[in-house]
């Protein structure tokens, strides 16, 4: 590779832990060529963000330090630069787009002034007018509508997607040679993610900047970069061209990651799950970092004894594995295994033929009175606005939608955490709303919940035994044997009982939450983004556990998620929500293979998939999700819809059957089955 923009050589970073210094990043080397897009992929604790902070010179002072290696940017070693020299580099040569658009701006400075500040730092001679023109130009480049007006606006007046655009404008303000994007779209909805990635690509094209994209999303990487490095436990395990690696991964970890990813373009019954927990800082195994979780090495002496070097598999593809010659054969064996396990599962797909659904929701409304954003008084937020659906016993009902569509409010209303404004909820033949408090509480015990955030869902002051036992204690059914059985069932070690939640990783905490939800033998568990915050390999473990428990106990799930691939993988039937209403509902194969509502089509098109470059043309939904307090009249989706007609503004479309008795969509135009033109 001639003249790389960035060249990282043998970088080693140590962090202070309770037990002394530990290597968080070890011997990492990679190059980024001029104009290239380079992806760094890894799960939490892989050291990818720390490496990026080291390149920016932003490592936290005191607890973290670089102990070896060099970082050459345009031929100069950043680690030897003084603070002032480094300052001249940052922003000008290398700049960063951070993950969280909510906290990356100063809330009391107008957007224009904040971006202008970056311009002024590196062009002290520029007049106020020149700076202003430059900023407006940048805002226009990243597709912020009406940049003149936005110049004066404060960060809170921007939506998440708009803020991330502004962040990109800021990052490219001084035409840096290298742009580091650290999980730039992780906090955004999938349709907004597609917009932001398009903007990023456009901004790069204009500035000719190289880019490092750090992400855990393999699909996103597949769509946006040329080469990748897969990091695990602070080391690079595999690096090379993205197509080559995804087609023929050389490292068993990469194979595991790819196979544990639910795919909505291909139905699989069981996911491959990498066993065990990731190697965390300060607790790294000897020999090959991955060997305790590796299905290929299976405890060979070599694997346990020493860390393999990164070696060539093909000229541009490097793998750090002792058994790299056998990876391909092993990967096909996994596929066979998965197919066998899948056929072993008896998969009786329940239809609507059963006498009575477990849960029936009719025309449910949940409205909130919220303070006006401007002026006095309150206005009504129709979070759930007339939703009807039914869930059969032993069935998984998927509920997808972007933020603000009301899917979580719907779940919480069913649980009795919000009061329904109108409509009926019939559980096992009995109307929940008709009953008095204690009776409805008894009935609601048939429904349990697992929430998204494994850190907030367990009381930090209780030990695991008490957490799992709590539902039993509340209902005066203390039973320690049952607690042990539940813990065993979800795969928690017996010695976990007396430990506190802080000692467990996200995936294990989610298992604890599942054990707690199972304690009262519920008929229905509401999974509110229950796997969304987990790493891919752990997510696959939890999904497989959920499926297994469903088989065993005959539970029905209401699976709420924004992740279409996961919903596709677990659900029998699916509903798509947009601004408080269901716009499409039906058996999951029909909805995903033959979507009828333009919103469903757009959602599916926006999800990055592994082999996207070859198979699909990109279709980006324009505009932001409207404010749910003031949704558009008529069909709420019409403002972003490619098929919208003037008549769509007049009436709200009803759900109508779409070529199959159980497949419904709420669209005036969809019935005619017009293909979407883009």
């Amino acid at each position: 590779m001639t003249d790389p923009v960035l060249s990282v050589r043998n970088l080693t970073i140590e962090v202070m832990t309770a037990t002394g210094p530990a290597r968080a990043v070890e011997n990492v080397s990679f190059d980024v060529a001029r104009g290239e897009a380079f992806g760094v992929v890894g799960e939490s604790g892989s050291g990818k963000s720390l490496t990026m902070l080291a390149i920016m010179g932003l490592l936290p002072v005191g607890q973290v330090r670089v102990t070896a290696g060099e970082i050459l940017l345009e031929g100069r070693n950043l680690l030897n630069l003084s603070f002032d020299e480094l300052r001249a580099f940052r922003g000008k040569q290398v700049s960063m787009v951070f993950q969280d658009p909510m906290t990356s701006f100063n809330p009391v400075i107008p957007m224009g002034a904040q971006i202008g500040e970056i311009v002024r730092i590196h062009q002290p001679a520029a007049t106020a007018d020149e700076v202003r023109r430059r900023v407006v130009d940048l805002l226009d480049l990243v597709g912020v509508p009406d940049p003149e007006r936005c110049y004066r606006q404060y960060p809170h007046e921007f939506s998440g997607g708009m803020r991330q655009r502004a962040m990109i404008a800021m990052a490219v303000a001084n035409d840096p040679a290298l742009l580091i994007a650290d999980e730039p779209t992780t906090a955004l909805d999938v349709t907004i993610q597609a917009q932001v990635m398009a903007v990023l690509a456009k901004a790069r094209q204009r500035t000719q900047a190289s880019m490092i994209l750090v992400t855990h999303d393999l699909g996103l990487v597949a769509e946006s970069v040329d080469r990748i490095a897969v990091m695990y436990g602070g080391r690079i395990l595999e690096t090379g061209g993205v197509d080559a690696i995804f087609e023929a991964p050389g490292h068993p970890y990469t194979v595991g990651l790819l196979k544990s990813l639910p795919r909505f373009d291909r139905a699989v019954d069981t996911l491959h799950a990498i066993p065990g927990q990731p190697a965390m800082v300060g607790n790294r195994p000897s020999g090959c970092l991955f060997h305790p979780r590796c299905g290929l090495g299976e405890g060979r002496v070599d694997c346990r004894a020493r860390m393999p070097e990164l070696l060539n598999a093909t000229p541009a593809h490097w793998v750090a594995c002792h058994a790299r010659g056998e990876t391909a054969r092993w990967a096909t064996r996994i596929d066979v295994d998965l197919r066998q396990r899948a056929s072993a599962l008896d998969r009786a797909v329940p239809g609507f033929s059963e006498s009575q659904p477990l849960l029936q929701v009719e025309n449910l409304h949940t409205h909130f009175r919220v303070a006006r954003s401007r002026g006095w008084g309150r206005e009504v937020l129709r979070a759930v606005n007339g939703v009807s659906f039914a869930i059969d016993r032993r069935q998984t009902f998927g509920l997808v939608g972007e933020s603000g569509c009301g899917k979580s409010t719907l779940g919480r209303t069913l649980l009795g955490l919000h009061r329904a404004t109108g409509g009926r909820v019939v559980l096992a033949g009995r109307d929940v709303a008709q009953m008095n408090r204690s009776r409805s509480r008894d009935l609601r015990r048939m429904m349990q919940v697992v929430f998204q955030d494994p850190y907030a869902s367990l009381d930090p002051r209780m030990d695991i035994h008490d957490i799992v036992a709590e539902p039993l204690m509340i209902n005066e059914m203390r039973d320690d044997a049952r607690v042990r059985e539940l813990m065993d069932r979800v795969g928690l070690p017996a010695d976990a009982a007396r430990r506190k939640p802080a000692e467990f990783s996200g995936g294990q905490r989610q298992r604890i939450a599942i054990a707690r939800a199972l304690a009262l033998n519920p008929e229905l568990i509401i999974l509110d983004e229950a796997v969304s915050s987990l790493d891919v390999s752990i997510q696959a473990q939890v999904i497989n556990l959920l499926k297994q428990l469903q088989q065993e106990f005959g539970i029905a799930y209401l699976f709420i998620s924004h992740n279409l691939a996961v919903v596709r993988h677990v659900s029998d039937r699916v509903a798509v929500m947009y601004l408080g209403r269901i716009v499409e509902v039906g058996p999951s194969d029909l909805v995903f293979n033959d979507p009828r509502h333009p919103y469903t089509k757009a959602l599916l098109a926006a999800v990055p998939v592994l082999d996207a470059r070859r198979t699909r043309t990109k279709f980006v939904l324009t505009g932001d999700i409207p404010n749910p307090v003031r949704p558009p009249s008529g069909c709420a989706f019409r403002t972003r819809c490619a098929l919208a007609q003037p008549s769509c503004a007049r009436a709200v479309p009803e759900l109508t059957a779409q070529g199959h008795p159980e497949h419904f969509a709420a669209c005036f135009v969809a019935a005619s089955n017009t293909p979407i033109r883009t």
Partner: protein
Amino acid sequence: MSAGIAMAMLGCLIAAMILIPALPGYDPYGQNLSAGYTEPFQTIEGKLYLLGADALGRDLVGRLALATRVSLAISVAAVAISMTIGVTLGLIAGFFRGPAETAIMGIADLQLSIPRVLILIAVTAIVGPNLVNLTLLLGLTSWVSYGRVARAMTLSLREREFVLAATTQGASPIWNIRKHLLPNVMPQMVIVGSFELGQIIILEASLSYLGLGIQPPLPSLGLMISEGQTALEINPWLSVLPGMVIFIVVAGVQFISQGFTAEGADARTSAMAAP
């Protein structure tokens, strides 16, 4: 580090308070008029006055030991009373919201708008100054900071998933408050309490100084400062020494509470970090 020093300092002080009255010759009430205004380290009639004596010749070591015990007892009891009231009201306001919250927070704001010393002076004038009244009054008027912090924490904790999960399992409000809210609120309350303790010691001292607190011959730290004031030119130590004890106690408690804050930071961030 500083918490360790502060703890050693307070430990010595408390040990001295307990041990000294047990020794002969340190009777806090025993007068010897010929030893009036003795300065520290003087020997009068064969007796060493380590810290001197007051106008009536009472040994200052014995009086300081008793005064410290009285002042600490009052302030610890007052902190316990106010913490109980404040945590209870704060939890009720934060968990049940609605009219209860409006009423409780209204009273809190009302009380904050009137200087506490003014209330104490007015009420003491009516009920009369004595040890029990003083303790109760200090306790009843100091709940606001606990109440506000407890309410703020409850507001965020009640929306946390572990509380919601318990609710869906049929937990009553009492269960949630007892099992989830109180244990998570308490560490913060201990920190607030350690700040309040210093404040109350000083408040007690100022009231006693004004003659509205402890009545002689029972000594308290504030009262001793006030008594010594008339003889500042003859023997300034009479006021300076109780002042130094107040300083040691208040500073010690503050340092310890800072240690709590730093140590508790991990536990609290894990309890409060997520939105």
